[in-house]
């Protein structure tokens, strides 16, 4: 990937992020923040590659910390977002059944 192409990808992705969010209602701000928090958990693949190429003990220690943190970001972000969004329902889906979310 050449530098200029990378720059174009960066620019287009930035506009995409802006467009995707721009019309979101306030009621979804918190879940969406949590969802985008999950998406940057993709850092996990980078941390895996970094640890996979580590040689010295120092590199390995930092690599392990990186993978540990990244896995936490990805998994935690997913679980919390899924829990929140799972609770949103329309009254057409059947009013009267109260929340059954497990504590």
């Amino acid at each position, binding site marked *: 990937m050449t530098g200029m192409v990378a720059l174009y990808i960066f620019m287009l992705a930035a506009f995409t992020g802006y467009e995707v969010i721009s019309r979101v209602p306030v009621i979804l701000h918190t*879940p969406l*923040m949590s969802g985008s928090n999950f998406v940057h958990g993709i850092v996990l693949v*980078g941390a895996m590659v970094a*640890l*996979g190429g580590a040689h010295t003990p120092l590199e390995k220690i930092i*690599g392990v910390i990186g993978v540990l943190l990244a896995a*936490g970001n990805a998994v935690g972000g997913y679980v919390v977002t899924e829990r929140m969004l799972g609770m949103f329902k329309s009254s057409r889906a059947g009013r009267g059944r109260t929340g059954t979310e497990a504590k």
Partner: protein
Amino acid sequence: MPGWLSADLVIQASYFVTAVLFILGLKRMSSPVTARSGITWAGAGMAVATLVTFLYPGMSNYGLMLPAMAIGGALAWWSGKRVAMTNIPQMIALYNGMGGGAAAAIAAIELYRGAGTGYVTDTLAVAGGIIGTVSFSGSAIAFAKLQGLITRSVRFRGQQLLNLLVLATALVLGVLVAASLDASPAVVSGFFVLALVLGITMTLPIGGADMPVVISLYNAFTGLAVALEGFVLNNAAMIVAGTVVGSAGTLLTQLMARAMNRSLANVLFSGFGDTGQAATGEVSGILKPIEASDVGVMLAFAQKVIIVPGYGMAVAQAQHKIWELTQLLLDRGAQVRFAIHPVAGRMPGHMNVLLAEAGVPYDLISDLDEINSEFETADVALIIGANDVVNPVARTDKSSPIYGMPILNADKAKNVIVIKRGKGAGFSGIENALFYLDNSRMLYGDAQRVVGELIQAVKSV
């Protein structure tokens, strides 16, 4: 495996699919109808990317990698499953900080190696390193504050100057490393330590109420750091996902700051209330208490009721009782709506999550713009644990710190019932003129108990 099908092609193609799934997932999360499937799509993307990364040629250290993934993932799974919905904001901060830390770790490995992979790559690694590290330590402080581990906001004269100094020094060290002038381990370590300090000192002075905006900002930071490290590793999935989150997070931060009537600079560089004096403006009139039984009768015969919940409702865990009361009123043929101010709860949209947890369908919930014209025709506005967001002073009193903040026009309703624990002022310390209006009545007590009494009162009518 056919000759044209290399591991690299499989990886690149899978990353492409991941990027598409992420963007579609985020898009679906922007509407309540499709939101749930959105996170599933994004999750599938993450699973694909993680699995194919094991195919990377020349990787070693699996003996360290797999346990690290298992431990990090398991702890996050466990904590994410059991956290109470009221504490969601700090969990987002925590997971976000972890992502920032991971991006910083990638940068650290690159920089300690000092391979001299070129000025551009080193500069990107340094930039991602400082942003990721600030996000890491800053999010940790944000978590500690919201969790109640740090209760004081540390402020002193010259604080901004000190932060600026720390930032400048970190940048100088970063330039030394990136320009290969001095990329010794000592300089690299100094760079990361200063970045850690910066995240802490930047976040400490910010008050708890502004924390959501800061968390959202750090979320954008982490996205950007991930994108920058993506460039370093030549990883397209990281570049696209990180950049999308970086820009979406920036926009979300602006929306949140605007909803709170603050500018981002204001949130970052001045504590709340620093500009105005607390408790301004005299309010005339008296507070008029009312009994739950009387409110019960009022509600039972009301045609249209608007409920305004605030964080006080969530603290009292009254949302389930409120939904029970709402169902009772709906069954009697009344029209019931929930009015949510953008800053109700700990962050925009948090109150919707809390109500959803209690089983309130989202189409009964309206935001400020939708509901404000409806108050004039409402028989009862029921204020539960909300205060500043319904204070008419924001419309009239130019000297008030909340002047100009959009508020819910609860004062326009025929009757206003305020459920409140005691007589204290709101979070901002400002007297609420709404409570003193002729059509207002105060119903004192713990929200959960009081709403329980209302349910009994309505039933006995």
